[in-house]
Structures are given as structure tokens and as C-alpha cells.
């Protein structure tokens, strides 16, 4: 019995002892991000050396989970900076007051259309377009023209070809729902979805299931549907991750006006965080060329800065939406639940 207690005490001590003590010297800046955030080692090292700091990244799951955590712990935050809130969640973050304003000097490099908070609580860091992707082989073999508008998708030629993600669970899924609201309006989008349903659209839970399980175009796609909601950069990723096996992407992205949604991502300094000066320096760093040039191959989105230089594979195969659908961030937050519930009523019931 004594021995058991001893073991338990030891185990407890062992693990509580693992907490990182902060020694004198470099200060630690804690950065909270979502699970698919990525950055190069030398880019991190550049910041750490320049500011005598240590960067600690916290993986907080997906964007929604991350924001929830940030809001619930805003009096005693887990991190000092938060990276990765997108425009569909921006209003919720701003309303909850989790950020302190900071007007970054480097903001001048960022095109004005990405500035969505006039009070400078957050800075835009990158953007990615959610677009329809298609299986090029299927369209060639069947002599089918590539859809150029949302309305095309309800045409009998495209019956049973489209797979989308559930907007209640997946961020590209929500983005696509928002495109339909942007194009057909709050009054018309349900009717459009009714037509899509009549044309045998398939709704699956998340991006992995849609892309790997239902889509037919990617290298490891198992499915039979040649149109999927993915990103405008997905064809470039297919080429890059084929490691030379492909010189041309097996898929294409539709970037026609009114078919895409632009996800803009933001970073901000968390209220009640530590090391304010270091956090500000990090925000500047996120907008610097060093970080911005690193974004494409790490996260497969476009850098927000106008000065950023794109890698070859992006120049060759990654596309940018021509005129993405526009829905104000405030309206997204206000109506998200109602829109999704009405959608579910029409599409899933």
C-alpha cells in the first residue's frame, strides 16, 4: 500500500515537474494557432535571434476550437499572440474583446481590401480561396465543359457529380454555403440548394472525407465524384506532393466570378498576455517578407503582403479567385446559426 502511494506520488511529481521553467535570458512568447499551422525552422530562428526570444507554439485544434478557448480563457490566456482567426470567425473574436489593438507599421504592405478591422485589433496575414476543384481526366473523357457558375451546377449534365462539406462542421463547407448566400442572397440561397439537392449533391462531414473519400481527381482520391469544394491552391499541392511524378496537376480549380469564397486569416495580440513589446515585434514579423515568403509552401495559402515573392509551383499552378463572393464578416457571425439550420432543413432532412 505504501509502495503504491509512493509510485503515485512519484508519477505526479514526475509530470508536474515537466513544466517548462522560464530561465533568465530569452523570453518565451507563446503563440496559439490551429492544427495545420506551419512555418520554417530558419524563419522562427530569425525572429528568436533578432529579439532574444523563444517562440512556443500551442496547437489548439481547428479554428473554431481555438477561438472558443481564447474567449473562455481571456482573463488568463494560454498564449500572448493568436494566429489564424479567419473572416468567418472574426466578428465573434472582436465582439468577445480578446485582442488589444496594435497598429502595425508593416500594414502599409497589405492591400486595403484585407483590412477588416478598422480599430487594428488584428492584422491580415494570408488568404486562401475556397473554390470548386474538378477532375480533369473525367471532364476530358466525357467531353463535358467545366462549370463556370454556381447555376451551372444545377444543370442535368452535372447531376451526381458534386460533393461538398458540411457547413456546420467544416470551414470550406461553410465558405461554400456563404458563396451561395453571396450570389443568390438570403432569399434565394435555399432555393438554389433545393435545386442542387435535386441534382444529387452529396454532403459529407469534412474536407478529408470529401477530397480523399468522394472526389475522383486527386492522386489518392477514392471516390467517383469529379467536382469537390476545395482550395484554389489544391492543384498546385497535387503537383508538389507528387514529387516529380506529375508535371501537370490532375485537377483544376474553377476561379470564375461568384464561385469562390476568400478566407482571410488574421493574427492579433491577446489581452492579458505577457511581453507586450515582444508580441508587437512578432506581429511586425508576421507581416515581414521573411515570414510572408515562407507562407505558401508551409500552409498552401497566399501571403497577404503585396511584396511577397511566390514559389515556382504557386506561380505555375496556384490560382486566385477572380471575384470572390462578398459577405460582410459581421453578418456572418450574426446569421451563421440561422443560415446553417435553414440549410440543414433543406438539404439534410
Amino acid at each position, binding site marked *: 500500500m505504501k509502495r503504491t502511494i509512493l509510485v503515485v506520488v512519484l508519477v505526479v511529481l514526475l509530470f508536474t515537474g515537466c513544466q517548462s521553467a522560464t530561465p533568465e535570458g530569452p523570453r518565451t512568447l507563446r503563440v496559439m494557432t490551429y492544427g495545420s499551422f506551419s512555418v*520554417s525552422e530558419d524563419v522562427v530562428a530569425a525572429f528568436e535571434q533578432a529579439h532574444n526570444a523563444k517562440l*512556443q507554439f500551442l496547437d489548439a485544434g481547428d479554428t473554431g476550437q481555438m477561438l472558443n478557448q481564447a474567449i473562455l480563457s481571456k482573463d*488568463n490566456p494560454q498564449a500572448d499572440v493568436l494566429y489564424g482567426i479567419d473572416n468567418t470567425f472574426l466578428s465573434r473574436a472582436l465582439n468577445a474583446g480578446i485582442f488589444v489593438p496594435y497598429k502595425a507599421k508593416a500594414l502599409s504592405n497589405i492591400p486595403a481590401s484585407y483590412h477588416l478591422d478598422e480599430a487594428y485589433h488584428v492584422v491580415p496575414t494570408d488568404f486562401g480561396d475556397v473554390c470548386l476543384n474538378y477532375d480533369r481526366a473525367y471532364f476530358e473523357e466525357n467531353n463535358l465543359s467545366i462549370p463556370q457558375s454556381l447555376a451551372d451546377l444545377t444543370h442535368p449534365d452535372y447531376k451526381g457529380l458534386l460533393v461538398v462539406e458540411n457547413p456546420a462542421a467544416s470551414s470550406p463547407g461553410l465558405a461554400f454555403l456563404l458563396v451561395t448566400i453571396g450570389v443568390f442572397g438570403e432569399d434565394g440561397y435555399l432555393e438554389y440548394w433545393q435545386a442542387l439537392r435535386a441534382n444529387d449533391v452529396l454532403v459529407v*462531414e469534412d474536407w478529408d*472525407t470529401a477530397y480523399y*473519400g468522394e472526389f475522383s481527381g486527386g492522386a489518392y482520391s*477514392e471516390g467517383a465524384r469529379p467536382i469537390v469544394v*476545395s482550395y484554389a491552391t489544391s492543384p498546385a*499541392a497535387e503537383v508538389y506532393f507528387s514529387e516529380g511524378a506529375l508535371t501537370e496537376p490532375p485537377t483544376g480549380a474553377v476561379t470564375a466570378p461568384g464561385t469562390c469564397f476568400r478566407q482571410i486569416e488574421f493574427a492579433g495580440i491577446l489581452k492579458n498576455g505577457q511581453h507586450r513589446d515582444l508580441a508587437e515585434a512578432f506581429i511586425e514579423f508576421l507581416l515581414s517578407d521573411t515570414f510572408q515568403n515562407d507562407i505558401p509552401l508551409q500552409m498552401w495559402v497566399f501571403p497577404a503582403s503585396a511584396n511577397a515573392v511566390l514559389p515556382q509551383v504557386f506561380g505555375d499552378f496556384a490560382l486566385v479567385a477572380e471575384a470572390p463572393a462578398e459577405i460582410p464578416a459581421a453578418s456572418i457571425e450574426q446569421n451563421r446559426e440561422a443560415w446553417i439550420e435553414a440549410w440543414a432543413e433543406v438539404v439534410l432532412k
Partner: protein
Amino acid sequence: MPRFHKENLTFSGLLLLPLLFLAIFYFYPLLKIFHISLTWNEGLDITALLSRVLSSSTVRVLGFTLGQALLSTVLTLALGLPGAYIFARYDFPGKRLITALTTVPFVLPTVVVAAAFTAVLGPKSPLNTILMWGMGQARPLLDLRYTLGAILLAHVFYNYTLTLRMVGGFWANLDPTLVQAARALGASPWRAFREVTLPLLLPAISATAMLIFIFCFTSFGVILILGGPRFATLEVEIYRQTVNFANLPVAAGLSLVQMMCTLGLTLIYTRMQSGLARPVDLRPQWATQQRPRRTGEIVYIAANLGVALVLLGVPLLTLVLRSFDLGLRYYRALFENPRHSIFYVPPVYAVVNSTRLALATTALALTLGLLTALALYRRRRGWLVDALFMLPLGTSAVTLGLGYLVAMGRPPLDLRGTTGLIVFGHTLVALPFVVRSLLPALQAIRPSLREAAATLGAAPPRVFVEVDLPIVWRALAVGAVFAFTVSMGEFGATSMIARPELPTMPIAIYRFLSRPGALNYGQAMAMSTLLMMVCVVGFVAMESLRPPGTQTF
């Protein structure tokens, strides 16, 4: 009277640590998050909230949640019991490895299982290719995905091993001469099973059924990914209300409904449990098992292994084969970091991290589980306490995760972002498996054995080591295996809160599968294969351990 007093003291003494653990890492965070959720909106309208939480849509979701869990449990038991019989009564080459392999599904992340099921059942599966060719059809004929069938199949895939190990392990110690006597007296095999074996097995079967039921009751990934957006369990609703709509009061309400259901069911079970237990003369496994000799036996064993192979082996094998699509390329790629990402996870590192967390979880869960089981097995009134230890398994991971976030952020419990918190979170889920495995074994020991040892002068600890331990050793090993898998597979609340870069194998797999491209998919399959291998090695090692100098049952 003093004896009674002493027993009470032992009871409280043994339970002190487990209850303290439960209070700090379960009840405290839960109360905290409920409190915050219900005071989230100023001037909360209780009646409005109640009518929303108890609306007809909740009733519908609850009905589906209960229904699918019940069906999954019945199906898993029906398919697993014949297998459990084989593993209890026969000894054949490769048995240990096969047992280990059946437990592998338990650790696989849902995304990987979905990939395997898609490969086996999806439109491009070999089965469909043959059907399409044979019937001259251009479109795939068979697609089981997004049906209730797919959900049930996946639940059987995950939980088959529970029946095999928990019921099979218990069965192996039952004296086969009991059935032989019944048969000699003229009972048919079915009657001998129904009237002799089944009543004796009931404690183990009901413990297993309870675990499977609660596991499926809180099912999340399987429902979402394999069932599709049309199906929703309470857990799915809680997740959506929390993460998508930030509707904390409703999420808390639904969470409470879910907990009440778990508690109610568990109480019924724990109340019945002590009544089911029948102390018997247990026999060591070497005395109850034999090599199959008659053709009938061999055919029966082959048929059961065939079922297990189709059910579990084919999906697993598909994953392994995929990982070798380009020879060893995907494995080599795991060791490369061409883009110099700071989040690159060297495979060795992920294996070490996962294994360390799993071993720490196993150690803690076994210690606490053993103390709990020892306190509970002879107490008729232990059932109320017993149910408490099952609760974490039936509690929403989303809710508990947020509870950790708000409760573990300040000294003296400043544990956010520490490895310790991850281990504690995993242990909370692992504990019910250890307790449920141990209790039936402890209750089956004839009290006269312990009394004899005590009469001969053995002090209580010595009685435990000499009498109980050899008998419950295997049950302890089964508990250890499940504690290990719970941690390896990243179950529990801690996967819901932010953590520093402590890459584990499941996390690496999720990362790979969130990007398009052949290399990402291939590496996910390679990492999954590594995860399976590490687990099989772990299971075999844990089951081979024996206390030195003791003959185990």
C-alpha cells in the same frame, strides 16, 4: 462491531486517492465549466434554456444516440462471444499475435478508419470493380457509407476486441468440468451453455456490454465521418453548439442530459452487478485450454478467425498495403523535412512521445484502478461509488476539455499545456476499463481462499499478493492493454485543449491527412502502420509480463 469498523476504514483508505483524483480532474473542472456556461449570458432565462435543451429535436437525437449504441452493443457481443469462446478454450499457434492484432482498431484515429473503410467499401473498392465489371455497369453499385450500417460496422470494428479480451479472459478461468458434468447428465450443448456457462459469464459480459454501450453512446468521429451529416449523437450536438455556434448554455444543458443518461444506466448496472457475481473455483488457463483436435473444432475456429479477418483484418491490411504503394518511399519521407517546417515530426520522436504518455497513463490507471476495485469488490453498497468511476467515459470530451481550460489555469493547479494534464486526462478515460476488467475477476474469487490464507497467519497485503494477485493478473493485463490504447489513440478531453508541440502519432497522422497530394496521404498511411506496430509490440509485451515466482491464472 470493531471488525465492521475496520472494514469501513479500509474501504475509505483504498478509495482516498482514486476519489481525490476524480474530484480534482473530473468534478472540479466540470463544475467550473457548467458554472461559467450557465452564467455566460447575463440574465439567463432558465425556462427558455430548458425548453431548448429538452426540445423535440434533443429527444430525437437522444433516441438515435441510445438506439445506435444499443444496436452496436448487441452486434458486437453477438459477433464477439463466439470468438471469446475460442480464445478462452483453445490454444493454437499465433493466438497471442492474433489477440494483439484484434486490439489494433481501438487505437486508430477515425480519419484513418474512414480511409480504410472507403478503400474496402467505397466506389473504387475491388469489390465494386468486380461487381461493375460482372454486371456491365458504369457506376459503382455498392456504397455502404453514410448509412446506419456503416456506423454499426465501425463500432463493431472498434469494440470487437473488448468482448474478446474481457469476456474471453474471464471465461478462460472457468472450470470446464462444470459444462462437461452438465453434458454428461444429458444437457445439450446449448442448454449447458445457457444454464451453466452463461450465468457464470454474466458479470464479465455485462461489464463489457456496459463499456461498449457507453463508448458508442458518446461516439463522435465515427458518426460524423462514416455516418455523414445526416446522423447526430448528443456528443455531436454538444460539439456543434460549443464550437460552431458558441452557444455554451445549450451545450452545457445537452452535456448534462448526456451525463444523466450515463449515470442512470451505470447505476442500474452497478446495482445489479454484485447480484450477478458468483464466487467459483477458478482454474488457471493452462488447465482449461486445449489444442483443437477434432475436425469440428478446427472448422469452428477457422470460421471465427475468418469472421475476424474479414471484419478487422481486411481494413487494417488495406492501410498497410497502401503505405507500401511506392515501396519504402512513404516511410523514407517520414524521416525527411524538405520544407524545414518547425512542426516536422521525426517518426522516432512521435513514437517515443506517444509511448511515454501511454506508459504513464497505464501506470497511473492501473494504480488507481486497482485501489478502486479492491475497495469496491466486497462492498454491497459500493455501487453508488462504482458508478462515479464510469462517468468520465460517458461525459462529453468537448465539455470536459473546456473545463480543463478554465479550471487548470491558476496555481496550485496551473497545469495547462503540461504533459501531466495529458496523462491525467487520458487516465480518466482509461480508469473505467481497468475497474471493469478487475471487478468481475475479484468478485469471482471464493472468499474461503482468502479466509484460509488469513487463518494461516497471512496479513491482508500478503493475502492479496498470494491469493488475489495471481488470479486477477490477467484481468490486470487486460486493463493495462486498454489503458495503453486509450492513451495511444488520444481519447479524451485533453485532445480538445491547446497543447505545446508534443507531437504524438495520431496528431502527425491528422496533419498529413489535412492536405492534398500523394505524399501526404502516403505518409499518413505509413505513420498509421507504425502506430499499429508499436501497439502490437506493446500488447504482446504487456501480456507476457508475469510477477516473478508466481504462477498466474
